[in-house]
């Protein structure tokens, strides 16, 4: 892993970008990495683009702000439009092809395509598309152990929504599978 990775997860409010960011941050924390996390919404609480930004580093982090992401996980078209141009050179972009209408235009970006919403639908809950996309990202980069992610999922859902642990686990693995098979 590079010294510092600036990452954004973006989508419609309601697509679970905050939860995805939270799980990723907790998994990093479990592996002893330094992280900072922030969440920002559009002016409207629903329907706009929401994004969760995370800085992951092996050393201390100066700023939690992600202006030029190294990694973007975009779950819908407005987020692709917003973040593609802002990305750092040679960044990695994961796009949810189920909810985006065009190809990535920048030639320098590494692109991972995953039909996350369709996969989530097949698993039985479209709302886990966020975790499918996260799985695809991890299946490609291997920056974290799967067990750390699963631990984070369990920690997050065990108290209030234990019923969601299984489907999130499945979604994570399904996303990672896409990359293995790609």
């Amino acid at each position: 892993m590079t010294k510092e990775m600036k990452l954004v997860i973006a989508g419609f409010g309601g697509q679970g970008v905050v939860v995805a960011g939270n799980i990723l941050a907790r998994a990093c924390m479990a592996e002893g990495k330094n992280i900072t996390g922030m969440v920002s919404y559009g002016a409207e609480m629903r329907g706009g683009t929401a994004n969760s930004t995370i800085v992951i580093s092996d050393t201390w982090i100066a700023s939690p702000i992600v202006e030029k992401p190294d990694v973007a996980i975009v779950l819908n078209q407005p987020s692709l439009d917003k973040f593609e141009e802002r990305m750092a050179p040679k960044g990695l972009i994961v796009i949810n092809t189920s909810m985006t209408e065009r190809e990535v235009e920048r030639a320098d970006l590494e692109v991972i395509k995953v039909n996350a919403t369709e996969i989530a639908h097949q698993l039985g809950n479209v709302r886990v598309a966020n975790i499918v996309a996260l799985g695809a990202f991890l299946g490609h980069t291997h920056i974290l152990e799967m067990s750390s992610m699963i631990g984070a999922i369990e920690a997050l859902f065990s108290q209030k929504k234990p019923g969601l642990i299984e489907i999130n686990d499945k979604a994570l693995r399904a996303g990672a599978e896409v990359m293995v098979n790609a």
Partner: protein
Amino acid sequence: MSATTAPGHTETGKKLLLKGNELMVRAAIEAGCRFFAGYPITPQNEVPEYMSQLMPKVGGTFVQAESEIAAINMIFGASAAGARCMTSSSSPGISLKQEGISYIASAELPCVIANVQRGGPGLGNIRASQADYFQAVKGGGHGDYRLIVLAPASLDELQDLTMNAFDYADYYRNPVMILADGLLGQMAEPVDARPYEPILELPEKDFVLDGCKGREARVIKTLFLRPPKALVTHNMRLQKKYETIASELQLCENVQTDDAELVIAAYGMTARIAKGAVDMARQAGMKVGLIRPITLWPFPGPAFMEVAGTAKKLLVVEMSSGQFIEDVKLATECNIPVEFLGMGGGWYPTPENIFEKISAIYDK
């Protein structure tokens, strides 16, 4: 008053991943805060929200006040009644609280006030800002009073300073402001949850209004009409207290200032971001350091004077248009050139911005 000052009862020893606003709540409750009144305003909304969840669990009181003005006055009452108490807001809300803060300062009641600053003037925006510096350290309300102003630069420090704030408030019988900003309030990073330990030997609260059973009736007031010099006497005593605080409580961090030719002066989150620029400059072979006041009032003047004696130049960076720089110039008595990188309210610098400025002025 054991019911209102008993500390603790939050989980300690765990690694937490909380937003700054939430961590502040946890730290306050851990430190024995048992009364909170506030009003929602972005970007500090997590404070009242989390308070409303945690307070009932420790037998404390959470009140969502009808206004910022009411909230600060509820604090006035709760403090007079002996509780460790706190209110929080963001810039426009703090403006509304100024009246009450002035009264609390004059009445010498302990309390903690958090300002998670956003952009202004007016409604401004909801991003981070440091534009309430003057308001916090020079007194935004009427009269000659001082707040102890603490400026944390990380969540770890936010946890410590929130706990310490209650001790400073009780020890000096003075309101303490935690001057945070939207970035610090909204960001999350891992923090070891630590238990509260008092850092000062705290005095008896002999001012508390709890009914005059077995003692003379007490009065808490801020109007001094008689005799004619009563107010002067009161104010001179306050000033003497402020002098004591100024001599006892100056906190400052120096980062690589010993050999630095250029020293950045910044506080709060800006200082943290500037530290990234210091690293970049050092890697580029430039001798750059950072001086960061942790108490904005009292301002750590001697520490700045020392740096002014060794460095060639200062660079002030602030998320405002030139407020903090005035104290830097006063503290260094203009003995050293001071460059400036300011951001008008509501936007933040990056390590790259600051590095760029360093590169531009380093050899000039």
